[in-house]
């Protein structure tokens, strides 16, 4: 039974003809000569299952994929929003079937029980009282045991879960290891089984199901505005502001689209937050329509209530914060910065950039001699003509540009700061140099470089 193509999945018509997954393709062709076959794409299947699980987030935020063919939803506290458990079950089944999926849905008290009831039971809602009895009738394979273990149990004559549950627990553990009792506990709700949701959960989220699918950008914006208004009320009671928001749109075709925006300062102003979505909405694709929207604040920070008048005195004006946020939205968070002084003699270390709205730095730039207006990120080697090794340079060549030096000031010796990383290995002698046209440069010579070699010269900056 090696090699050869095998079936990985079949449809209902093929099952009627006696085809089974795992069967060699040649055998299947023998049974059904007109069989239509397509290559299996496990990665694409997994991706599409993931998309579907995201889309199921419209019913509950706790949605996760389960194996290669399942989705687990934790609907604790969600069912009443959709008219109770039975109504929710029917709705999910109806929606997924309309998308063209063949589904078996079970709703039970534990994930393990739901798993078993969906795959080995009748499906549907398992009433709380009936659970133990119903599960007891299922084969032991419904406990999600390794195949070897299932086979062993069947050889021993243990066929149903009820028979297994009747056996003494200590003996089971001794004989079959810890997996078996753990699976039993999970099935009957005696052991924990957490579900890892696909998307991070937030304390702050608002959802809106729409009676009719919407497709126009204005309608989406109106819906977003309502969600933001709703969110702002909750946030203002809790004295919190939003730093990051994620809007997820649920399309009718079973896919989702996410939009994330960030703010430089916590905010809960719906008008302002709504404007931030203008830029990401450029890639809005409503497809055949959007039927639900979920807005989650993924990062929030304390934001005490303020009086309007304070804003002028304290902090940056709203116009500036709004501008910075718009720029960051389009260009990226790292694109908008502010220079900040660092007390360092080493030119590369003296200026760092900090986020645009970081609190003002405490130190100021104090330089012993003027500094260039532009510093090259990496010093560029130049060819220098000198009369004697320690003399000031006479001419240099930088980027195929010959400069005859008219005047020169220096040297200014700067030693590397060994206590700062990254450590430069050699000290530098800086010269301020002016060529005959009056262009001013900042050159340096490595002064304690390897002996026996001519000193290397670099151009490091341009003076105004």
């Amino acid at each position, binding site marked *: 039974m090696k090699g050869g193509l095998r079936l990985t999945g079949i449809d209902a018509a093929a099952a009627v003809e006696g085809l089974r997954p795992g069967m060699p393709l040649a055998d299947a062709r023998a049974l059904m000569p007109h069989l239509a076959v397509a290559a299996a794409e496990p990665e694409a299947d997994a991706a599409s299952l993931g998309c579907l699980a995201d889309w199921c987030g419209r019913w509950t935020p706790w949605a996760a994929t389960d194996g290669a063919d399942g989705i687990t939803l934790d609907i604790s506290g969600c069912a009443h929003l959709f008219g109770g458990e039975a109504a929710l079950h029917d709705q999910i089944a109806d929606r997924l079937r309309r998308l063209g999926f063949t589904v078996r849905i079970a709703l039970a008290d534990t994930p393990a029980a739901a798993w078993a009831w969906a795959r080995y039971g009748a499906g549907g809602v398992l009433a709380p009282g009936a659970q133990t009895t119903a599960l007891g009738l299922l084969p032991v394979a419904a406990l999600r045991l390794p195949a070897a273990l299932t086979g062993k149990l069947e050889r021993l004559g243990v066929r149903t879960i009820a028979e297994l549950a009747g056996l003494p627990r200590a003996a089971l553990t001794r004989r079959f290891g810890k997996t078996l009792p753990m699976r039993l506990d999970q099935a009957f709700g005696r052991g924990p089984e957490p579900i890892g949701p696909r998307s991070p959960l937030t304390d702050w989220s608002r959802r809106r199901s729409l009676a009719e699918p919407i497709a126009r950008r204005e309608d989406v914006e109106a819906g977003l505005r309502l969600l933001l208004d709703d969110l702002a009320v909750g946030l203002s009671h809790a004295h919190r502001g939003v730093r990051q928001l994620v809007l997820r749109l649920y399309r009718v075709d079973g896919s989702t689209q996410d939009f994330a925006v960030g703010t430089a300062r916590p905010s809960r102003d719906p008008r302002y937050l709504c404007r931030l979505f203008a830029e990401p909405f450029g890639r809005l694709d409503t497809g055949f329509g959007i039927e639900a929207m979920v807005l989650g604040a993924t990062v929030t920070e304390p934001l005490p209530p303020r009086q309007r008048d304070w804003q002028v005195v304290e902090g940056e004006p709203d116009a500036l914060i709004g501008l910075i946020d718009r720029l960051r939205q389009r260009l990226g968070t790292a694109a908008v*910065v*502010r220079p900040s002084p660092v007390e360092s003699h080493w030119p590369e270390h003296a200026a760092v*950039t900090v986020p645009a709205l970081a609190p003002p730095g405490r130190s100021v730039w104090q330089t012993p001699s003027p500094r260039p207006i532009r510093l090259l990120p990496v010093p560029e080697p130049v060819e220098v003509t000198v009369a004697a090794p320690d003399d000031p340079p006479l001419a240099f060549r930088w980027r195929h540009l010959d400069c005859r030096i008219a005047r020169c*000031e220096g040297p200014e010796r700067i030693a590397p700061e060994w206590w700062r990383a990254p450590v430069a290995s050699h000290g530098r002698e800086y010269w301020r140099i002016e060529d005959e046209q009056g262009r001013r440069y900042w050159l340096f010579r490595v002064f304690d470089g390897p002996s026996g070699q001519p000193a290397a010269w670099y151009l490091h900056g341009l003076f105004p």
Partner: protein
Amino acid sequence: MGRPTLDLTLLRRHVAQLEPPFSRTSEVVSLGDPGLDMALPWRGLPKVGVHDIIGSVADAAADGFAMALAGRLAGGRGRVLYAGGWRCWLPYGPGLVRFGIDPDRLFLVAVHRPAELLWVMEEGLRGGALAVVIGDGAVADLTASRRLQLAAENGGSVALMLASIGGAHSSAALTRWRIAAAPSPDGAPGPRWRVALERCRGGRPGDWLVDWHDEAHRFTVVPPMADRRLALATA
């Protein structure tokens, strides 16, 4: 004889109403030298509008001139936004101290495309949160510079368009300056530039040798005679 004068004043009033607000009401910043101020029709540089500054690639004279203008326009309280990117050399903080630019009030924006740069400038000008927006490498055609001029009038801010080439294209800018490095005088390390006012709306072109004073944060025009003596000395 009274009637034509009456018509003329009426017409003047009409024209004044039609003109954009900056030419009548906007504040003006002195450049520090009366000779420069008087050469401009506004008797200084208005705090609203677009200015082109053209320099060369090989030196930073135009950068220095733009920063000096920005320092004077922003004063102690205004904010400056510098947008640029493909030269990869953002302004170096310690070198800006001499232009009176407070690092806490300077924002640096890295952009990757010319269209993005114009967008950043327009956003920055319109909001009114900034005093000066410097666009490094910004080349705006007539339409784009008109847009920027309108945005600047909306927000009450100044745009400095810093370019290493240009001048041939038409622009709606109020002024166009061409800056070149000039040999500095003996004993004074401050920047000295050859400043040419090539175009000026409502004014006349001019050409000066200008010093920047690091402590006073102001320009001074070097008298032509002094320049000649220096030229002879250095030749």
